[in-house]
């Protein structure tokens, strides 16, 4: 069993138009920049994939990663908890122009809905958002005298995530807070592709330290020395690069 994919282009080759794509990361930490940019390359070359629904905590920053996907017009809808941050100008402009849809989900509910999707739990109850605008239209129920909102699972066609080590079976580790949503998304997508900073042999990762077991992973592609979204944005980077 060898889940290695030789190139970034191959890793994102089979994502269709209209797909729902979970993308790991919280702000820049854990953002699979190289996978996202490979997807943009494919779109620029072929016109696909377009009309994507993207699930991520945020809505991109600056002009790289998810922001660049939005800027290129690949994204129909964002599902996220916090589309407002330091420089989400690309999303903000599109949103205020009515050109992109937004489903706003409380952060813990977003995480739990993704976990539920991966764990075969079609719905659950949470106290979060009870009595607020974000609970409008959702079933509520009382348990032990307290009121809760029913939330549904979230699944995706594809998840694109960033990991640290990945062995050929797809077992993964992450790096510090870059872990965030990625282990959940890996379970909730029909196919998950992980860019890993280092591809290693089975047995090179301590079985006690595996965070995502290989059963959840469709393929890994090695990207050593991956870019950090935060560094790119501090350097005012654009993707694709703006040439003079």
């Amino acid at each position: 069993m060898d889940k290695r994919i030789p190139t970034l282009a191959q890793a994102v080759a089979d994502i269709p138009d209209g797909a729902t794509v979970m993308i790991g990361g919280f702000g820049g930490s854990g953002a699979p920049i190289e996978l996202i940019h490979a997807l943009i390359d494919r779109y620029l070359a072929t016109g696909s994939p377009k009309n994507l629904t993207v699930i991520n905590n945020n809505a991109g920053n600056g002009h790289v990663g998810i922001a660049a996907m939005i800027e290129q017009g690949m994204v129909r809808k964002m599902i996220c908890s916090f589309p407002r941050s330091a420089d989400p100008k690309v999303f903000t402009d599109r949103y205020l122009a009515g050109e992109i849809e937004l489903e706003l989900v409380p952060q813990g509910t977003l995480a739990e809905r993704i976990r539920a999707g991966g764990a075969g739990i079609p719905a659950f109850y949470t106290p979060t958002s009870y009595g607020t605008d974000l609970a409008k239209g959702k079933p509520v129920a009382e348990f032990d005298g307290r009121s809760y909102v029913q939330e549904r699972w979230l699944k995706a066609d594809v998840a694109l995530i960033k990991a640290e080590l990945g062995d050929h079976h797809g077992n993964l580790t992450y790096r510090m807070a870059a872990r965030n949503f990625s282990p959940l998304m890996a379970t909730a997508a029909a196919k998950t592709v992980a860019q890993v900073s280092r591809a290693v042999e089975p047995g090179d990762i301590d079985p006690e330290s595996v965070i995502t077991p290989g059963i959840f992973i469709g393929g890994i592609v090695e990207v050593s020395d991956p870019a950090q979204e935060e560094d790119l944005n501090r350097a005012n980077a654009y993707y694709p690069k703006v040439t003079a």
Partner: protein
Amino acid sequence: MTDKLTNAQIAWRAAQDIADGAYVNLGIGFPEMVARFQPPGRQAIFHTENGILGFGEAPEPGAEDWDLINAGKKAVTLKPGTAFFHHADSFAMVRGGHLDVAILGAYQVAQNGDLANWSTGPKGVPAVGGAMDLVHGAKRVAVITDHVTKDGKPKLLAACTLPLTGVGCVTRVYTSLAVVDIQDGRFVLREKLPAISLDNLQAVTGAELHLDGAVGDLVVPEL
């Protein structure tokens, strides 16, 4: 000619349908035997409910580590690429549909895919383990079983009479006499032992066996 497969032979036959790289859960007891018969060149990855993916065979007697056991509480071994996880993550794999195949034993299987394999009735201490989760988790839920009970009664039935493990969950049954698919609420005969006639097979089956194309010969090695 063989007139009835041994358990090992049933397990062998079931193992032939497991693809290279498949993620597989084998029920406690008889189904565990399937692991022994992986065809050459194929490597399945085995999952056990108590939190291991990718474990290996039993260790030599005396070399057991009782923190490294399977769901049947038998000692297993590590292989390169093993991962440990807790019980909620383990059943997320199951319930979330991430396993390719689960192979379970059965008291009864009905033509609509209902399975009864956890309780023979109200006597004694009831125990269910992970069976009720497994039948709803794997992409393919197969049963391996004798074709009939010890006293010769059919185990493949129009409807189960024992308490159910799951509703409409089984898709294929490997028995001591035949390989039977469950499709659209019917038993469809795929293979049978050459030694048994279709009539005789029907006589020990509790619901109609439908045909859908040719019936193959169920041929297995001596085991």
